[in-house]
């Protein structure tokens, strides 16, 4: 059962072909990792999936229906930076999606409704390990804590698909390990479909149920900009997880991925957890 | 359709701060205006505007029904701009209120070749032209430099200014400087710089009560302020303070202002043929400087009407009227 289907997708920018002939069909519960050279169009592809931009050719279907040409809550996203709101405390960042859903006018709740929302996000706050930092502003958090918050915020509305654009690219290795465990746990619990662009091949192999490689297949030395990148490899790594609801209780692939032998660059935690600093 | 020509009940006139017009402020604040307006079943607002030119512009643009201004500005701005204007009250004429000041020289003829700082195209400019005329010089023999009235007093303190023409109270402030010499003043061309309250002719025609109320209030104020009673002193003190000075300062300004406290004198002044001659000087001056109406082909372009049906200039384009009839009513106690 494929959640996301991409058919004959192509993107040109000002006449330069960036992506071409991309066909992809992603099953529900898959964890797709995407790698490719810098500038080959990975972020562009993600922007198309988001609906932030429209493809020059081809179409994208979500659950069989063409996606609307703008971002919607069925597709969550985490970028490398600017993914959380600097003017809201950690707690308010998590409450924001619910406030937006419930207060269609101002987008802001008051009194009991507000307390209610805050109570609802308390569990999530705990799961992303920020319960002690609930009242801090993002500017007072480390990079790792900010990305944890960004992921948490993207998950509040339980999107069908979560899109990640190099979410851990700027983090220290030790912190990265933490984040991998966190994202695998959340993916496993929610049963959502994940699309993650990364520069770290090891990360791509370790996390994904499927690895997608973008590259230029054809190259004309006389017209280097004539051809765009497409999908050159598409490796299944492990079976996607069944949707959270009807998943068997047996050993699950995500847990398996998480319990791989620890990577040898395992650095000790040097203070990026909220309490380590004096 | 023309709002000005309609029969209305509420009116606005404006005035600006100047010795001869201070009574208007007092008329408004003391309730005299309301008293006279009530008498004729109308309401009149007397509004103070600090910038003299802006007050005339606003009147010309139609925002006010009446305004205080000099005879010269009445001819060049509203009349020249096609707003038919009637000089309702001839309040005073400058009798020394305007003067030419030289530094360290006491002969007018010394002005030849100097930079003369003044408000260009104002009555000061006119005074200078008339003064030069009398000693056989012309404007070509000096260099006129424009200075805004707000800056004039301070400007006189600098080396650059050796000659200036201005009016009171700037004049008296300047004359306090030891090196300042007044070499010519408006008392030498008596009756040529006249301070008026003008109103829109169409409005006045449609609403004679406005004229009556204004004139009535004015001459009641005149009789109070000219009296040597406590009420008179109080009124003058009020005016002094509103003018930014004290009673003594204000009274010295009044000394060089030939006030027509008695309406009969004003009527007589208006009827005198000398007025026609004065206005002829004025229109020649304005025409020469290109400010008598838009693209005026000759000094006759704007017509003026005087008491007794006499006219000056184009009778098909009469825009400025000297009409003593309301002042006459006051003189005869008919208000």
């Amino acid at each position, binding site marked *: 059962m494929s959640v996301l289907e991409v058919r004959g997708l192509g993107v040109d920018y000002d006449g330069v072909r960036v992506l071409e002939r991309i066909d992809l069909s992603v099953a529900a519960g898959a964890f797709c990792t995407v790698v490719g050279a810098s500038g080959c169009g990975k972020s562009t592809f993600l922007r198309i999936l988001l609906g932030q931009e429209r493809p020059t050719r081809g179409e994208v279907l979500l659950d069989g229906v063409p996606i609307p040409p703008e971002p919607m809550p069925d597709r969550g*996203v985490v970028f490398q930076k600017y993914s959380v709101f*600097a003017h809201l405390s950690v707690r308010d960042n998590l409450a924001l999606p619910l406030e937006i859903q419930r207060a269609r006018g101002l987008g802001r709740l008051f009194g009991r409704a507000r307390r209610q929302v805050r109570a609802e996000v308390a569990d999530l706050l705990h799961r992303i390990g920020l319960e002690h930092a609930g009242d801090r502003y993002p*500017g007072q958090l480390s990079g790792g804590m900010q990305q944890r918050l960004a992921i948490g915020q993207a998950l509040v509305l339980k999107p069908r698909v979560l899109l990640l654009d190099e979410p851990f690219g700027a983090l220290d290795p030790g912190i990265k390990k933490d984040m991998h465990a966190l994202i695998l746990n959340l993916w496993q619990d929610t049963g959502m479909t994940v699309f993650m662009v990364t520069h770290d091949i090891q990360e791509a192999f370790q996390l994904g149920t499927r690895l997608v490689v973008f590259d230029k297949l054809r190259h004309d030395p006389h017209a280097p900009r004539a051809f765009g990148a497409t999908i050159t490899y598409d490796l299944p790594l492990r079976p996607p997880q069944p949707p959270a609801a009807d998943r068997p209780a047996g050993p699950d692939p995500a847990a398996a991925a998480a319990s791989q032998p620890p990577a040898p660059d395992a650095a000790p935690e040097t203070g990026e957890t909220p309490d380590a600093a004096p | 359709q023309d709002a000005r020509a309609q029969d209305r009940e509420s009116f606005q006139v404006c005035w600006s701060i100047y010795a001869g017009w201070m009574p208007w402020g007092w008329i408004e604040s003391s309730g005299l205006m309301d008293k006279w307006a009530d008498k004729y079943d109308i309401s009149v607002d007397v509004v103070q505007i600090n910038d003299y030119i*802006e007050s005339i512009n606003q009147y010309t643009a139609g*925002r006010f029904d009446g305004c205080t201004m000099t005879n010269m500005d009445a001819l060049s701005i509203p009349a020249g701009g096609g707003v038919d204007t009637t000089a309702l009250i001839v309040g005073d004429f400058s009798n020394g209120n305007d003067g030419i000041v030289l530094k360290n020289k006491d002969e007018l003829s010394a002005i030849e070749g100097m930079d003369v700082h003044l408000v260009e195209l104002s009555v000061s400019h006119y005074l200078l032209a008339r003064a030069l005329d009398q000693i056989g010089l012309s404007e070509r023999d000096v260099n006129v430099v424009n200075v805004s009235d707000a800056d004039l007093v301070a400007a006189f303190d600098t080396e650059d200014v050796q000659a200036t023409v201005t009016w009171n*109270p700037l004049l008296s402030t300047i004359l306090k400087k030891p090196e300042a010499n007044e070499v010519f003043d408006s008392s030498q061309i008596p009756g040529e710089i006249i301070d008026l309250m003008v109103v829109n002719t169409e409005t006045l025609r449609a609403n004679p009560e406005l004229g009556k109320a204004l004139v009535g209030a004015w001459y009641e104020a005149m009789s109070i302020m000219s009296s040597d009673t406590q009420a008179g002193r109080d009124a003058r003190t009020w005016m002094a303070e*509103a003018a*930014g000075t004290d009673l003594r300062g204000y009274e010295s300004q009044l000394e060089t202002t030939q006030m027509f406290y008695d309406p009969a004198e004003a009527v007589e002044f208006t009827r005198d043929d000398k007025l026609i001659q004065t206005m002829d000087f004025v229109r020649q001056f304005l025409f020469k400087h290109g400010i008598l109406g838009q693209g005026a082909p000759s000094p006759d372009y704007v017509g003026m009407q005087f008491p007794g049906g006499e006219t000056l200039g184009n009778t098909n384009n009469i825009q400025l009227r000297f009409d003593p009839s309301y002042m006459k009513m006051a003189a005869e106690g008919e208000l």
Partner: protein
Amino acid sequence: MRLINQKPSRIARYALGALPFAAVLLIYSVASKLRHMENPQDRLLPSLQQMAAAVERMAFTPSKRTGEYTMWLDTLASLERIGIGMLVSTVLALVLGIAMGAIPRIRATLAPFVGAFSLIPPITVLPILFIVFGLGETAKIALIVVGTAPVMTRTVAQATADVPDELLVKVQTLGANSWQIVTRVFVPMVLPRLIGAIRMGLVPAWIFLVSAEAIAAEQGLGYRIFLVRRYLAMDVILPYVAWITIIAYVLDRAFYLLSRKGLRWAHGEGGAL
């Protein structure tokens, strides 16, 4: 040690800061004394005592005409005008600026016009302003608004356009509609720069206030300065100017502190002058 590494102590800082003020005061006193020696009735540079007397007269003696304290009356009138003017400018800047920054159609429509409009020196079109707004309080406030709102609007529009695209995408994936994006993202994120714009705008606001009051007013700080200028009463003008400067300084600091306290998130790092 390099000059840039020599940091004065706290006390030295205060002493150094007071220096230029003391110098100006000294130069003024000497110049004033010299002029008075030449002409005892000089009005251009009154002595400090003369100014103190004028303040005593204007601020602490009831006016004979109205029985009120002139300087306070003037201050209140001016503050009211500048307050309303800046309020209107702020609202305009916020509404137009965010609309321009956020909605491409509105930006395309208004940006060139606001840009051109902000370059018109308002005092040159005073007669038209007065005709449109009348000569009452509205005109004076309008002059302040016309003089400050366009630049403030441009600042807010730029701040709105500077909100990172990522945040806009993110909030859309959280289901926000355009209006919610305005209330929950643009308005709060733009506030620090709006306060900055208000602080910048207060400088020209005072200038326009003074100009407006010089043309049509019966009280106000600018009016009084205009009125006594014809007598060159610098003993009144200078204290009034100092008073305006003090008020402006206090307002500026107040907005700065408001921003620091009220928008802590925006003042994470970097010192401001």
